[in-house]
């Protein structure tokens, strides 16, 4: 049972497209599973003949549990193997141990399409991908709280997860269920008297990308994270241009009914935030643009198309590492968590279509420089000087009243690489806004 959603613990098979003894080719649909979002086909990972279908239609199956076995041509069909009792993301046995355990021979291919080969690490002992590096304290805490360590980004050396990382991860876990705002999905957390903060993620990311910044934001402000179309939990929409995309975001913004809000956008989300500010200026308290799109045609097209296309951790990892200045930050565990979030092939297809439209020929095909000149709310523009996706010099198009923050040794994702700095700059704008409101009230 593949994991196609960050929050998914079990999956329900609604129907089988094959029967016992059906011959399949790699890529043929095997069965349909149902998630919160949609029904989706799961394709065969290999050529062969399907046998031992364990999971009947309509049953819930833990992630990682085999649901059937594919035998290669000529292989003897043995007795039905026991399904793995654990609900882990991928089988724990190593090749060669299977035969000895009485399970099928090595030639079987598990239907789990996510089985990652162990990746070599730069230094030290390799941490198996399903057993991330973590301190005993972090492991105990994760056990107690039922948190999956594979989804946590470790802050320690070589990505080691410590107690504080598990505690920080709890914050998003207690947020309310996602809600539909017109065409798109948004996630609310926290609350209080402060002006809410709206976060717009970048291309090929989703709301989880803000996980390191959200706990550092000042208390008393609700945090709202929007999933862009075909990203995270938002359904794919037909988008023919940047204007179409911006219209969807504005529609979601209107539907969510914000009175006043601080808007933070990254990369493509930064371009969309700028477009939003252009048409809804009165409802924005401030604008924080992190390496925003649309301020020049230059970009690293290979990276964005590579991200959109990547169908497995090995092909995703090099592009994720290009996003940051210190590739060590993108640990194997991080890559696998990111890949789990992109396991849905329809999500990848939607993102590729979006990239073809917005970044045709590896060029940013939309221009927001005029919108930046017109921006009327307090605005900060953040850019890492080691950004390899959009050149930081595009920041120099900003008019004088926009504050520039150029960060040394930071790449394209400052909120991942230096969440403390990003949170502090957003907090500055919130403080400024509060001071102005107080002055106005006093007057």
């Amino acid at each position: 049972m593949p994991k196609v959603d960050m929050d998914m613990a079990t999956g329900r098979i609604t129907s089988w497209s094959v029967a016992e003894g059906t011959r399949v080719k790699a890529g043929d649909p095997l069965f349909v599973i149902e998630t919160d979002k949609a029904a989706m086909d799961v394709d065969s990972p290999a050529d062969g003949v399907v046998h031992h279908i364990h999971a009947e239609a309509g049953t819930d199956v833990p992630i990682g549990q085999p649901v059937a076995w594919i035998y290669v041509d000529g292989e003897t069909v043995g007795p039905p193997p026991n399904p793995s009792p654990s609900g882990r993301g991928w089988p724990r046995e190593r090749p060669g141990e299977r035969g000895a355990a009485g399970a099928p021979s090595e030639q079987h291919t598990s239907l789990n399409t996510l089985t990652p080969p162990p990746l070599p690490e730069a230094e030290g002992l390799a941490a198996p991908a399903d057993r991330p590096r973590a301190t005993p304290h972090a492991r105990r805490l994760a056990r107690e709280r039922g948190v999956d360590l594979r989804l946590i980004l470790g802050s320690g050396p070589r990505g080691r997860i410590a107690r504080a990382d598990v505690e920080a991860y709890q914050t998003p876990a207690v947020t309310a269920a996602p809600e539909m705002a017109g065409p798109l999905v948004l996630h609310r957390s926290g609350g209080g008297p402060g002006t809410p903060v709206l976060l717009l993620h970048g291309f090929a990311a989703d709301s989880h990308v803000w996980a390191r910044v959200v706990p550092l934001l000042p208390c008393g402000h609700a945090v709202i994270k929007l999933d862009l179309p075909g990203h995270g939990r938002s359904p794919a929409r037909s988008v023919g241009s940047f204007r179409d995309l911006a219209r969807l975001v504005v529609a979601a913004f209107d539907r969510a009914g914000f009175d006043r809000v601080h808007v933070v956008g990254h990369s493509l989300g930064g371009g969309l935030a700028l477009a939003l500010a252009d048409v809804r200026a009165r409802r924005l308290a401030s604008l924080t643009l992190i390496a925003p799109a649309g301020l020049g045609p230059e970009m690293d097209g290979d990276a964005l198309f590579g991200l959109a296309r990547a169908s497995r951790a090995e092909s995703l990892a090099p592009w994720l590492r290009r996003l940051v200045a210190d590739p060590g930050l993108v640990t194997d565990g991080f890559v696998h968590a990111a890949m789990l979030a992109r396991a849905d092939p329809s999500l990848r297809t939607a993102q590729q279509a979006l990239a073809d439209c917005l970044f045709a020929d590896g060029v940013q095909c939309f221009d927001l420089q005029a919108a930046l000149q017109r921006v009327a709310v307090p605005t900060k523009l953040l850019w890492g000087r080691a950004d390899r996706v959009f050149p930081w010099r595009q920041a120099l198009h900003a008019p004088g009243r926009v504050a520039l923050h150029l960060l040394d040794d930071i790449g394209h994702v400052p909120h991942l690489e230096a969440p403390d700095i990003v949170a502090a700059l957003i907090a500055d704008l919130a403080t400024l806004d509060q001071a102005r409101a107080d002055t106005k009230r006093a007057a």
Partner: protein
Amino acid sequence: MSAAAAVAPATASTTPITGAVVRDLSYAEAIREAMAIALERDPRVVLMGEDIGVYGGAFQVTGDLVHRFGPDRVMDTPISELGGAGVAVGAALTGLRPIFEFQFSDFATLAMEQIVNQAAKLRFMLGGAVSVPVVMRFPAGSGTGAAAQHSQSLEAWFGHVPGLKVVQPATPHDAKGLLLAAVHDPDPVMIFEHKLLYKTKGPVPEGHYTVPIGEAAVCRPGRDVTVVASAVMVPRALDAATQLAADGIDAEVIDLRTIRPLDRETLIASVAKTTRLVCVYEGVKTLGVGAEVSALIAESEAFDYLDAPIVRVGGAEVPIPYSPELEKAAVPQTADIAAAVRRVVRGAV
């Protein structure tokens, strides 16, 4: 002095008598005072060692005791550690309570037969029919420019031997209290006295009291990291903790006081609280006291509370050099301790 009146009760007070006067004494003076009290209270107590009589001891610890108690109770022994230690073990077997002084702990190598094969074993080999209530005092450690054969920290060797108790006081108060506890103990007790501590001063109550063998002391409570030290590493760890406090790091410093038996409960409770452990010891890092403390924690229920790798700060893997700068570099200094704690607390290890 009548023997009946002088014998100390079996259950000695562990705290000074209420109202006892507390003065500042040096570590050496506190030990001398403890030996004088033991000599006064118990006629079975005798002191033995090379040059401890009229000369007053290699580090002037026995001082004037020969003049107060006479050469029958403060005995110079010939320059043979094996012979002297053998006489002390034999005297303990036959009813005396000898306190035997080595000039340098390094010379224990010459007396290992008597300590390891005789004193530590006889109670067990004779079915509990005898005990060997001998106390041995070892001036130990580096920092005096005395080079490789006079500067070692060998306490871990003795900590490896069942049948011995090994203590390592860091303050004048504990030096006196542990020595008196050792005199009362029915089994051989090895006391490692750091030579750099002899002149350090601290509050010491008058009169008789003991510090229980096997109890560590939390000498600075803290929240972020447990620093376990002994002997001269305790004041260094405390200095480091003061520096670290300025950086917002709240270190708990534990003075082991006893190497064998280790105070498991205090160590486990502390690490479970702070979630981090740094072991500091002057002995060579490999297979040293800190290695044992680390393993104890890794095996204990505190394991699940560890939020960083355990770090040991121990002596370099070299004989102690003669050059003063190299000698300093060979053993942990305050800056080394502070740096290690910073790395552990900031997640850099």
